[in-house]
Every structure is written in C-alpha cells, then in structure tokens.
C-alpha cells in the first residue's frame, strides 16, 4: 500500500548511548546488557534503533516508565543532545532530503528556532526564570531574526493572552508565577515562531489536577486551531488517552509497541504495555 500522506517529521534508527561502549556490548547481542546498561564498561544505551513518523496535525504520544529513554529521545530531536547515530527529516526543510542530525550547528539552530518548539517538564530548562515573561518570548523571536521591538511586543502579548496569562503581568518574571503559569509561558514561547512541530516533554507532570486540566485544554485547542503536529511524552496514560491519536510504548530505550491510542489502551500486546495499562485501571 502506497503512503497517502507525507510525514512532517521522520525519525529513522535513532541511537543514543552514554559511554564509549566496549567489545562486550557493541559486538554482542543486546541480551548481554542488563536492561540497557553494559555491566563491563558502564555504557547506557538510552535510545536503541528508534524509528517513527509524525504526520500533519497529529498528536503522537510516547509512554514508558522512567528511564525508558523518552526524554533522551526528545532531547535528541531538539538537538539538546548529540545523537550517536540515526536520521531525522522534516518535510519542509530542504524538501525532507537532508538528515537533520548531520547539519551544521548553525543550521540546527535555525531548525530549532523556526521549525520546532519545545516545552520541558522543568520550566527552568525552557525559560530564563528571572527575565520577564515577554522577554522570554522575545528571546525566541530574536533568535529567529525578529528585530522590531514593537512588533515583538505585540506578538508576545498576543501569545501570552492566548495561553491565558493576563497581559498586565507580561513583564513579570516566570519565577513569580505558579507552576501551571510557568508551563503556559513555556508553551507561548515554544509557539512564538509558529513551529510545525511541538515537542512536549511531561508538561503536566507535577501540576495539580485542575491546573493540569487547563494546560491540557490549552494544548488541545492550540492543536485544533493551528493544526500543529505534536510529539507528547508522558507517563500519564490519562494524558495520552485525552490527546494522542497514536502512541509509542518505550521500554529500555526501545519502541516495543505502537498503535492507535485506543489499541494500546484496550488491546495492549506486549507484557510491559499490559502491566502499564493494568496499573491504570
């Protein structure tokens, strides 16, 4: 069956290891590892041969327990980490012909600033916590080449009101804000250059329920209005159920199962996925 649509983002055989690897772990079968750890040289294989596509306007969920490589994967996609090997293509960048991981750091910065946005679980990673909120957004706008202060102020205010941050508090630093508000400032910042792809790494983890709900509602409405593609990492199956069209399940750095979100939740196949789903119910 030929493909009837073109993916926005395509990841092929992504590998990320921490440590040099040794004869014991590189030349032998993965079975010699303890989970994804080599007991001889101490290398951790954080992502192993991960491949997936993200299509226009869809939300792709990634679930897995802590340490399964979800965040490392997201860091690789946003160039926060150097990948060990693998390929990534964005359809609108060089016609989807150039492997992003092999681009110069200047080009990677361009891709980060123009084509992608990322929201981290920890606002300290995504924001300059002592700078004004609107300044945080301006930072990303400037990085993408904006120089007109008035226009940036307009755009910043517009984004902040979109994520329900009162405009009169736009000059306040995120450190004065609640956790939920900080996440919303991060989302505004991530959206500032109208990216095609939004990476969300555990955005609602650690927020209380009503605040979680408001952040999730915001993400859903943004996705509907802007038709943005989202990669959503979460260990919370409720969040995945609410937002994701398709879901990948990761264990020990590998994708062990993928499918429609209702397939994963109602008819999980792998033993790990089953125990994950049953823990929810």
């Amino acid at each position, binding site marked *: 069956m030929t493909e009837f649509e073109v993916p926005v983002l395509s990841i092929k055989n992504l590998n990320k290891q921490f440590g040099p690897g040794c004869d014991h772990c590189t030349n032998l079968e993965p079975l010699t590892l303890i989970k994804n750890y080599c007991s001889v040289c101490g290398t951790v294989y954080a992502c192993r041969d991960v491949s997936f596509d993200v299509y226009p306007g869809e939300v792709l969920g990634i679930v897995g327990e802590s340490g399964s490589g979800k965040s490392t994967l997201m860091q690789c996609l946003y160039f926060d980490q150097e990948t060990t090997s693998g390929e990534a293509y964005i359809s609108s960048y060089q016609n989807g012909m150039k492997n992003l991981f092999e681009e110069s750091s200047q080009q990677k910065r361009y891709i980060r600033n123009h084509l992608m946005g990322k929201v981290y679980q920890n606002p300290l990673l995504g924001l300059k916590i002592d700078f004004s909120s609107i300044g945080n957004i301006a930072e990303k706008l400037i990085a993408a080449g904006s120089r007109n202060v008035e226009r940036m102020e307009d755009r910043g205010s517009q984004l902040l009101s979109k994520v329900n941050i009162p405009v009169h508090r736009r000059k306040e630093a995120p450190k004065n804000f609640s956790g939920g508000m900080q996440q919303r400032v991060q989302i505004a910042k991530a959206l500032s250059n109208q990216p095609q792809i939004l990476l969300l790494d555990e955005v609602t983890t650690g927020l209380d329920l009503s605040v979680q709900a408001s952040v999730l509602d915001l993400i859903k409405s943004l996705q509907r209005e802007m038709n943005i593609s989202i990669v959503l990492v979460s260990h919370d199956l409720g969040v995945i159920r609410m937002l994701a069209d398709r879901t990948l399940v990761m264990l020990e750095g590998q994708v062990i199962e993928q499918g429609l979100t209702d397939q994963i939740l109602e008819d999980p196949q792998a033993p790990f996925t*089953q125990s994950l789903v049953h823990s929810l119910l």
Partner: protein
Amino acid sequence: MENLLEIRELSKSFTLHNLGKNIHAVSGIDIRLGEGDFVGITGKSGSGKSTILKCIFGTYRLQNGSIWYNSRKFGPLNIAAATNRQMIYLRKHEIGYVSQFLNVMPRTTARQLVKQAIVEMGRDQVHAEKETEQILSHFELDPELWDSYPATFSGGEKLRLNIARAMVKKPRLLLLDEPTASLDYESKMKVKVLIEQLMHEGTTMLGIFHDLEFMNNLCDREYNMQNGVFTLAH
C-alpha cells in the same frame, strides 16, 4: 469488491501475560454486508459481540482472518493490515462507532463536540456552526444543554448526542454497540426513529442489540452468537 464489508474467518483472543492466560473471544466469524444493509447481532453478554465491532473499528488487533472494507479513499482494504494513519482517516470519514458509553473529551460542550466532528470533515467554521444547531435540534436535545458538558447529561441525552456526532459525518458504515441498552422505552423509540432515518439515507449498519423486539422490525439479517459461534437467525 462487491460488498461493502467482508469478514472472513475472523478470530481474536487475548493473551494476558501477567496472568499467564489466553482468553479466547471469537473465532471463525464470517459476515458480509452489502451497501445499505442493516445486520443485527444478538447473543448473551460475554459471547464476543462487541469484540467483532472493535475489530472492525481497529481497536482490537485480530490474530487470524481478514476484514475487507471497500473504502472510498483506498479501495478494497484489509482493515487487519491497514496502517494506523489509514484507520484514523477511515474513522474520520467513513466508519462511525456508537456505543452506549459516550467517550468524549472532558470539558467540551455538546455544541463544541458536534462542531468539531463537522470541522474534521473539512467544513468551514460558519457552516459548521449552523449545521451543529440544526443537528442538535433535530436530535431533540434541549437547547439549554447545548452549551453544557455531556458528562452531566442523562443516559438518553448522552446517547442521542453520541449518535448525532456519528451521524453528522454521514459514515458509510456505522457500527452500533448496544446503543439502546439502559434506555427507557421512550428514548429507545427516539433512537429507533433515528436509525430508521439512517437506513433510508442508505447507511450500512452493523449493530448489536439486546432488545430482540427492537431489532426484529429493523434488520435485514440477524446473526446469533453463542460461545463465540456464529449462526444466521433470519
């Protein structure tokens, strides 16, 4: 492909790894649905009726057999081998699923829910807004409820909203999973009228009904399930 849907030798079981069990649900199911057919399935609860519908909708992955669906977009397509993206497309445009449970986004009003379904079909906002109001009043949903959350609705209201949402998409194939269970007589009759209307519009339907009386006057054919075995009743 002559029929709209051809299920051949479908079997499905569930392997529960942590319990070391294999639960057999259904096997050897053959169903054929021509365009415009209305086929009913009866049987005890636990006999595997819903399993069949969930296999067709792609929620369950089958072990054996095939589910050939004659898609407008893809031509004859084996749902058992379709990609996830193809399934998402079919769910948006061709195959609808209605159960007695309303599965919706929390904090979304009835109006938004129906409107989203229309927008997904590619209509513009203004048109969708109008059509939403038409549909909601057609389904006799009290206008006071339009802007409130379905979680607060009664069973009958939820169900009518559920069918409304499925109907606006004008699916070619509509799967009905005991839509009338837990409804009182009056609500049941309302649902019946809606189903008859869909029949007149030529929607192909495969439905599970507990209520034999309800089904008898409607279906072209009726299958009975017993212990995972399928027999033609009429």
